[in-house]
């Protein structure tokens, strides 16, 4: 009783939406207030890590080609790496601040995986458009988190980081929007 692929995309979209809201709240109140309760410091890294874990069954059960499977495994590893490194930094187990660079690395690698595994141009289909949009959003997110590493208190970079997650959520909610319930769509777009 596997959920349809679009349902999986929407569930990941909810995860990114929740992360985006948390990061936006952290930006508004400031890191010192956000971390007054230790569990909040662990919240977004652990959710990111958990989403990375859930990406593995997606890779196993939902991919229909080798390049598609590799892209999903790259996203799984990227999310787990970034989440684990941020957890280690928040807990104090990791002391070298260079570990924070795993975040821009994960976003850059994820964006590259999106763009490489989508072999059609932007306007070929809805899925192609969303893959390109997600890929470039991840690459921009990589640059933003690089700026965040250099200037951790910058409101611009912190807000940008939160908005990247909200953009991921919006794009994932649009993904695979061709289920039978959307029968008013053109048959060429997957509708009935």
């Amino acid at each position, binding site marked *: 009783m596997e959920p349809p692929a679009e349902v999986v995309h929407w569930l990941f979209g909810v995860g990114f939406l929740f992360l985006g*809201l948390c990061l936006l709240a952290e930006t508004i109140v400031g890191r010192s207030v956000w971390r007054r309760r230790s569990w909040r410091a662990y919240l977004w890294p652990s959710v990111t890590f958990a989403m990375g874990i859930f990406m593995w069954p997606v890779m196993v059960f939902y991919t229909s080609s080798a390049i598609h499977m590799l892209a999903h495994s790259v996203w799984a590893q990227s999310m787990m790496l970034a989440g684990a490194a941020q957890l280690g930094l928040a807990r104090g187990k990791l002391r070298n601040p260079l570990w924070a660079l795993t975040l821009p690395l994960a976003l850059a690698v994820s964006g590259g995986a999106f763009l490489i595994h989508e072999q059609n141009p932007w306007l070929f289909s809805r899925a192609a458009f969303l893959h390109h949009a997600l890929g470039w959003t991840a690459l921009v997110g990589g640059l933003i988190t690089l700026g965040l590493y250099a200037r951790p208190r910058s409101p611009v970079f912190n807000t940008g980081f939160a908005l990247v997650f909200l953009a991921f959520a919006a794009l994932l*909610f649009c993904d695979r929007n061709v289920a039978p319930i959307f029968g008013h769509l053109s048959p060429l777009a997957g509708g009935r």
Partner: protein
Amino acid sequence: MDAELVQQGAQARTRHSPRHTAVSALGPLTALAGLVWALLQPYRITILDPDTHGFWYLAVQPPLLVILAGAIFHFWIVPGLLADLERTEPGEGR
């Protein structure tokens, strides 16, 4: 004089800092976005037509999920965050 102090105290209790207001608004705004989405695309609310859909399409309805995410954020994350915010900015907050 006493009445004036009481009035000032009441005003101070109801005045919130911009940060307090912004954090308080995040969850309701998210839920509102989900509600607007549901109104714009009612066919995504599959519970309105339950006989023609399977389990997953009935369980996962994106506009309702957005409302749920906003509600969880508002009722789980925000109260403690506002309490901590008020402790750190006693002059601006409640």
